[in-house]
């Protein structure tokens, strides 16, 4: 306690560099950065060499009023986190991209002031998440690329209805263009729905940014008309018989094809990828 008061005095008087408690010097030697923030102290190890010993962590745990601790990408293990279990002032804890798993989470269940917990890129699963069901202060939880599933998220949100859980995107749904394959021929083809009624063409909805290659295989010039997000048709241009046109568009957009005197011939609805749209009689 005595050490704590002296430290607070040093922090608030800005004499940090001149003379500092041994604890702080050791934490700094271990690559830690310590600074005051509103409401307490922030300690971070994520920008150094990221080698944090259990001893250094136990010194951090002895510091008074640490509100933020950043251990991102450090070498800490499950057992090292036992020191954190006594840091009752902690509000933000970064554990992302560390090698911890479910066995580490039990050390966090007593941290009632904890608001932000980052478990992105760890091996924590739904099993570990159960340890946090009574952390009523928790408002932000980051679980991208961990082993936590939608079921685990659903379950914790039953206990903590105010909790925002950020699961991130499933990277397998992102198409990576192969640089060795020239992006010439679209692999997908849109279905032409023949119709002479404008009202058949559905209103456009938003989605992925894609391209449509219109190929006019009829013997007459046609117009391409975008059906807006408000349902209103908008003429984008003409395509001569036998000609093609590449058009920027979005997934779920509707393109109506009409004659030059605006008589509808049919429409296409875009899919999620670059596609060919063949206009035929």
């Amino acid at each position: 306690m005595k050490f704590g008061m002296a430290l607070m005095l040093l922090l608030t008087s800005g004499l940090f560099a001149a003379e500092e408690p041994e604890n702080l010097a050791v934490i700094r030697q271990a690559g830690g950065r310590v600074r005051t923030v509103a409401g307490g102290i922030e300690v971070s190890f994520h920008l150094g060499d990221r080698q944090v010993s259990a001893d250094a962590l136990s010194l951090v745990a002895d510091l008074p009023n640490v509100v933020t601790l950043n251990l991102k990408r450090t070498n800490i293990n499950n057992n090292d986190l036992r020191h954190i279990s006594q840091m009752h002032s902690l509000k933000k804890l970064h554990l992302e991209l560390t090698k911890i798993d479910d066995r580490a989470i039990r050390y966090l269940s007593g941290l009632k002031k904890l608001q932000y917990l980052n478990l992105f890129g760890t091996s924590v699963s739904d099993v570990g998440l159960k340890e946090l069901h009574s952390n009523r202060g928790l408002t932000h939880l980051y679980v991208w690329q961990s082993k936590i599933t939608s079921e685990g998220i659903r379950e914790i949100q039953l206990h903590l209805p105010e909790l925002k859980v950020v699961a991130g995107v499933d990277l397998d749904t992102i198409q990576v263009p192969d640089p060795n394959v020239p992006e010439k021929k679209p692999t997908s083809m849109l279905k032409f729905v023949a119709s002479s009624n404008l009202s058949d063409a559905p209103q456009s909805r938003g989605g992925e940014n894609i391209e449509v290659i219109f190929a006019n295989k009829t013997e007459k010039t046609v117009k391409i008309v975008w059906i807006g997000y408000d349902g209103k048709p908008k003429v984008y241009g003409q395509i001569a018989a036998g000609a093609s046109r590449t058009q920027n568009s979005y997934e779920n957009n509707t393109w109506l094809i009409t004659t030059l005197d605006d008589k509808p011939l049919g429409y296409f609805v875009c899919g999620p990828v670059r596609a060919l749209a063949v206009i035929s009689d």
Partner: protein
Amino acid sequence: MLALQASDARPMAAKRCIVIYCWGGISHYESWDPKPDSLSEIRGEFSTIETNVPGIRFSEHLPKMARHANKMAIVRSLFHKQGGHQQGMYHSITGHAPPPGVKALKRTNSPSLAALVGRFQDPNSGTPNAIRVPYNMYDNGTLMAGEYGGWLGSEYDPILMKTPSGKAFRGVSRYTSRELDLQLNLDRDRIINRQQLQELLERKVGDSTEYDRLDRFRQMAADMLLGSDVREAYDLENEDPRIRAMYGDHIGGQSMLLARRLTEAGVPVVQVCAGAGDLAGGSGENWDTHRDNFKKLKNQLLPVFDRSVSALFTDLEMRGLLEETLVVFLTDFGRTPKINNNAGRDHYPAVYSMALAGGGIKGGQVYGSSDANGTKPKDNPCTPGDFHATALTAMGINPSVELTDQFDRPFQICNGSPLPLF
């Protein structure tokens, strides 16, 4: 000491800042302040779409960004009096009205937002306070004033780095002849050891001021090139190809990705020029859409902008970085209500829109409004100074602080008042 000063203003202040600059002046009508009920000669060709916030509508060509409106605070009532690019950009990027005859690189100029925010940070050794990617801002071959450190001194000039990959914006983009900007981008395979690097960087320089600057940058270049976190972050080949694909294979997207990687690696501020570097009379892919406003926005500018900004928001959020990272959008001014004879819109500083996200900013809100036709502020008019004061406050920097230049002359860093966006 700086860290202590910097943390006083707001609890849990943002730690990093990404400034996205729409060079040339993005049309408020075709982005964040559409006017669907105006006459077609004002409204323009685009319709509007719902966002994920009821009541807030964006241009139809920002469909991805519309899903992130709940992260953004849109300010629709900004105005200033500078109708030229140099003057408008200077006012917008520094928060201060330009001096008469403003010229680039003068040490009496005001610092850019990036330079000023960088001044209050204390990054690790070998990590620059502020970086700019991927281009300098030029207008018809003239280097613009405003994106430098100004009276803060040369050590706070944000360093220009080339984004190492991505399809370039069409049009003209330039690099200065300043060696260091290029040296930082040397292929690391050519750098065998520090001594060789030092030799490479040795050269005769004009005066002592420049020598000091170069000396500091030499050291920084050496640190960065030889295996620091910044070096690793700069190498986009280290990124998951699926994340790279999410940002899009365009320098606009890869620059946003680089900004995320650099700030994550400890660079306090990164400024991204979101368009070609030289306005070149409005030709090329920049926001100065005097001609073919709609065609250019729809087919070239907005798809890249929409995709890259949305990817940045998604990426920052899922890594748990968004609430610590302030994202600031800036531009020269808005565009004229009336569409000109070339299907374009001209310069219009009387009202325009900008935005903030992350960093403790409350998302899903619109501050201020323009009148029915987007011609002037209606509610809560505000200035670039007010916008800067807001950004500085988010970064934990008291906007009314005074700093002194190298001759001990006092400068107030900001002359605006923070907007209530927290």
